[in-house]
């Protein structure tokens, strides 16, 4: 009888740790949280591309805020400011004559709705008499292994031009003040030829895979001039997936299957029970 109680106690002691450790093991099943949405910012770039318009001061206002978030002074024809990273939302771009007070009425203004992850070029385009602020949506992705290119025609002297790159006609009849959409081209370095009525220019222009370009045709000191703006750049070839950057030496050990151990415990319990029973059946020898 006493033996039976002893055996029970032993069994209880053996099983208790199982319960204690089985519960946390089951609860610690890890899950990787899905990526949260990114920072909620976009980009704005301001440009002056009106040949006969004097230099301007360009102001960027967050909608409803009367103090400017960004002020660019003395922006002259052909100037393209670097992209500014801004919080997504509504903005107003205002142009004033260079040196005019911030409180004076702007010559021109335009509103821009910046969507997170998108980039915009806000350019003063056209002749001074018909100056307008145009908001351009700048593309940030290229087809795999390709380059993207678009053209802004800002030459008033050669008011219609044709543009070829490496023998391929990008646009054969591009009027002053117009902007093409992006075209996909096979990457490489090739000569860009811009031809107007009375002038032409030739430049070696590299368009690498994974890059986005805007070519701006300008009136130069003499003849035509081309600015190659890099709108965005990524990897020429995107690696497939994430790299294998670990060997596991610092990894938390994943709990191995407890089954073999549980089976061993079970077998041991059966053995002990069998032994205990037999002990009860066989009377102890009395001396």
């Amino acid at each position, binding site marked *: 009888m006493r033996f039976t109680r002893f055996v029970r106690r032993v069994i209880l002691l053996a099983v208790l740790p199982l319960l204690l450790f089985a519960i946390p093991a089951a609860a610690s099943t890890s899950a990787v949280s899905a990526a949260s949405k990114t920072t909620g910012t976009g980009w704005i770039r301001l440009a002056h591309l009106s040949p006969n318009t004097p230099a301007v001061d360009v102001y960027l206002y967050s909608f409803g805020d009367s103090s400017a978030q960004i002020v660019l002074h003395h922006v002259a024809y052909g100037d393209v400011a670097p992209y500014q990273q801004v919080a997504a939302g509504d903005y107003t771009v205002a142009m004033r004559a260079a040196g005019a007070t911030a409180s004076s009425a702007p010559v021109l203004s335009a509103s821009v709705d910046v969507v997170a992850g998108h980039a915009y070029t806000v350019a003063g385009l056209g002749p001074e008499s018909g100056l307008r602020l145009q908001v351009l949506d700048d593309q940030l992705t290229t087809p795999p292994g390709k380059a993207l290119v678009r053209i802004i025609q800002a030459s008033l002297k050669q008011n219609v031009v044709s543009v070829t790159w490496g023998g391929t006609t990008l646009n054969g009849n591009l009027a002053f003040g117009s902007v093409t959409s992006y075209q996909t081209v096979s990457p490489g370095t090739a000569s860009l030829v811009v031809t107007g009525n009375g002038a032409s220019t030739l430049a070696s222009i590299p368009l690498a895979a994974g890059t986005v370009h805007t070519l701006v045709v300008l009136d130069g000191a003499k003849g035509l001039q081309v600015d190659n703006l890099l709108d965005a750049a990524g990897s020429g070839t995107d690696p497939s997936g994430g*790299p294998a950057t670990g060997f596991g030496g610092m*990894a938390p050990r994943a709990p191995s299957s407890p089954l073999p151990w549980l089976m061993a415990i079970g077998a041991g319990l059966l053995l002990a029970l069998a032994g205990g029973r037999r002990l009860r059946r066989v009377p102890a020898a009395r001396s």
Partner: protein
Amino acid sequence: MPARRRTAALLLAAGLVVVGAGATGLVLTRHSEVPQAGTLQVLPAPTGPIEAAAPQGTAEVAQPVSLTIPAIGVRTSLVHLGLTSSGALQVPPTTAVAGWYTGSPRPGSIGSAVIAGHIDSYRGPGVFYRLSDLKRGDRVYVRRADGTLAVFEVTEVQMYAKDHFPTAAVYGPTPNAELRLITCGGTFDYTTRSYLSNTVVYATQVT
């Protein structure tokens, strides 16, 4: 003592020993210790001529040669990484250095420059062991071959399951000079001997 009784007692004892061994094994496999990394040394920020972000990316910047992240004690030279035959990003040959993917823009020029490093080796921490500890606003310094320094600020730290790796967000074009620091993370799969996730730190050049 009769032989039968002795056998029974032996049986009981053997059974208890097996139960004990099983319980010990179970407990030990649930609680094996992970080797501990050394204490964190916070490094001073490097000094040197700081190159302003190139205005429109036309200016060539020099190749990156070393990387310093004071907040997590990283100071390493940078090797060059290409792609494997299967198109994946090569990884540095040792776990002690990080590498720049030569197919990505150079750090400090327009675009998303990619730098990868190991989280660990078979037995200890690798160069990017603490990458996921970085916080928004932490500074990252890349020294270039001409001695100039490109300074970046962390904007985001993300962990992605490898089968949902956002290739476009990580490697795709950006309109400003950015940096992507990549290592492994998450659960380690002992059957394939690889981590199931990647940690990606996004940083933007500050001037």
